[in-house]
């Protein structure tokens, strides 16, 4: 339905997005995962036809949206990262305004407003001014405003930044429901790995303007199929132990904090004995050893050497 070919965007000679390719099928739920500054927002601004690419093309049903954006805009709902609402107006007044500019028929508008307010769980508070809402409630109205014209494609740019866990769960559940029940195609950007894992069937991982990995969750996890994620705990912190295990052959990406030491180890490397010995040498005792299945976060770490929040 929507295809992106070698899409690039440069600002003053610096490439913010570098020849990326992606596609969205009807009813798809796709995640764009990457740390802040990876180029996710620029990418979705180009896909949303808000900014023009420096090179490359975006095709909607085979036609370039760079040349003729109208067809895509008709079916597109965009939830920007910013709260794009009039804070001095109530939730209802904001939705009425956005409904009018989207030319929703007068007789349908009232019904649609109530539907989207119901969906975001703010029907009872529709008459209250947006400026009196919590961050989470504002984000929910922000999403509601993009749904009034019943878009076929919904693009959400980090819709859960800086909100309470309750609102976050509500938003994620709502997006999931829309994708599953109404078949809305979802493109969801985030730097929260767990959100993308929870919501999206396919994931594109971005870093420094490039897509560094893409596929279903299973496909991405298979990148780490030969590795285990291990977390250990010593009875006391030991810098010499951390330094020692960094030098071990099958261990990499070691990260230590006051309580735990996390690292990736080659599958089947049987390192427990090694760890116990190194702990003894450092005058400490190994009190906990835990092996986890790698997550997308670990995939990102594996690919870039950094965590998503770095």
């Amino acid at each position, binding site marked *: 339905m929507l295809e992106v070919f070698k899409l690039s965007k440069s600002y003053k000679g610096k490439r913010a997005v570098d020849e990326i390719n992606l596609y969205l099928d009807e009813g798809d739920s796709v995640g764009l995962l990457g740390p802040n500054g990876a180029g996710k927002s620029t990418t979705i601004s180009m896909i*949303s036809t*808000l900014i023009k690419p420096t090179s490359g093309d975006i095709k909607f049903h085979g036609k370039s949206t760079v040349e003729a954006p109208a067809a895509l805009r008709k079916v597109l709902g965009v939830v920007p990262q910013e709260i794009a609402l009039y804070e001095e107006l109530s939730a209802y007044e904001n939705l009425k*305004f956005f409904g009018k500019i989207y030319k929703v028929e007068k007789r349908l508008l009232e019904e649609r407003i109530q539907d989207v307010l119901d969906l975001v769980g703010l029907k009872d508070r529709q008459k209250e001014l947006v400026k009196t809402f919590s961050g989470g409630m504002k984000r929910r109205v922000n999403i509601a405003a993009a749904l009034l014209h019943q878009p076929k494609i919904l693009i959400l740019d980090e819709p859960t930044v800086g909100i309470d866990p309750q609102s976050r769960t509500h938003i994620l559940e709502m997006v999931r429901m829309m994708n599953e029940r109404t078949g809305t195609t979802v493109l969801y950007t985030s730097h929260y790995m767990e959100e993308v894992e929870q919501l999206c069937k396919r994931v594109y991982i971005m870093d420094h303007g490039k897509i560094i990995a893409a596929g279903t969750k299973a496909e991405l996890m298979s990148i780490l199929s030969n590795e285990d994620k291990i977390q250990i705990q010593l009875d006391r912190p030991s810098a010499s132990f951390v330094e020692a295990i960094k030098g071990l052959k099958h261990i990499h990406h070691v990260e230590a904090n006051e309580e735990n030491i996390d690292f990736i180890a080659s599958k089947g490397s049987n390192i427990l004995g090694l760890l116990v010995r190194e702990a003894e040498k450092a005058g400490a005792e190994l009190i906990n050893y835990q092996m986890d299945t790698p997550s997308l976060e670990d995939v990102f770490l594996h690919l870039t050497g950094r965590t998503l929040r770095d």
Partner: protein
Amino acid sequence: MGSVFMAQLAKDRRNPLILLLFIALSILATLLFVRSTQNMTTIAVFSEDEHGAAIEEKWLPLLNREGAYYHFKAVDAKHAREQVQKGRSDVAVKLMEQDYRLVAASDSPTIQQVDQYVRKIYTQEMQIQASSGVIKEEKLREAVNEYVRKPPFRLTKQGIDGSKVQSHNMSTQLMFAFTLLISIFTMGFKVNSVTNDKVSRIWDRMILSPIHKTSMYLGYISYSFFISLFQVTVVLILFKYVFKFDLGHHFGLILLIIAIFIFGMISLAMLITGFVSKPEQFYAIYPSFVPMLPLISGAYMPPGALNNPVLSFIADLFPMSHAMDALMKVVNLDAGISEIALQLSLILLIGVVYMGIGINLAERKSARK
């Protein structure tokens, strides 16, 4: 266009305080400045002569005669000198039997004006006294007064069409100057909603909607126009009917000038919007720039007081000087639309040029994104 207009109106209906404040400010500023121009300046006089009291008694009534520009008040010599020394008054007059001295600490236009006035009174009195050697002084004084009352020749002024020549109404001029100045702020802040909405991404939502960009701009501009015209109209009605200011006989024409002026100034605000990318930048530039417009346009000064050609040229590039010119012609000279057509055309021209450049710059900036 209608949706954008109504959204802006709804915002202001929720928070009308700023609009009301601007209306109040227009009225307050006008009343304050008009009052200060109407107040007579008090000039201290004293005499250090041994017959000081008699000298003061003789000259004070003559100095304070009907139609005097200043109010002369006898004070203690030491106090008068102190006031001048401390800069609390520009000048004091030391009276003598047949002469006077001005006490001043620095040069100023007031000193020259006071000197001119006091010299005129002394000269007249000396002439009467000089003639009193020939004719009895009382008789002469009476004859002079009679002569002034019924002069052999009387100079009368009238318009080309025989109508009465109006004197320049400074109070009305100041009222227009302050009302227009404060409305400029309203216009600017409303036009800045474009930049505000761009930053908050409301603009992007609109771009993605079926609404045309022309309609979007028209929505903001027409609202800014409407609210500014409303503000100025309320202020003018209050001054005309409550404060009884003389606004001439063409209130409709005055509103037409104001409407065209508002269009011109909104275009200027749009031009500045074209240069900035954040609302804060606009808030920094606009309020520092616009208060200069009435100053360089001579809106606070009597006609002819500002004759610097460079300033006049700069002032002509903005709608304020043309609007003030047209307004005062309508109020003072009872001018009709054909007599102010040039000023109105110039404002419209300025408006079209500034608006064109402003929107073009803003759009180029968006395209560069």
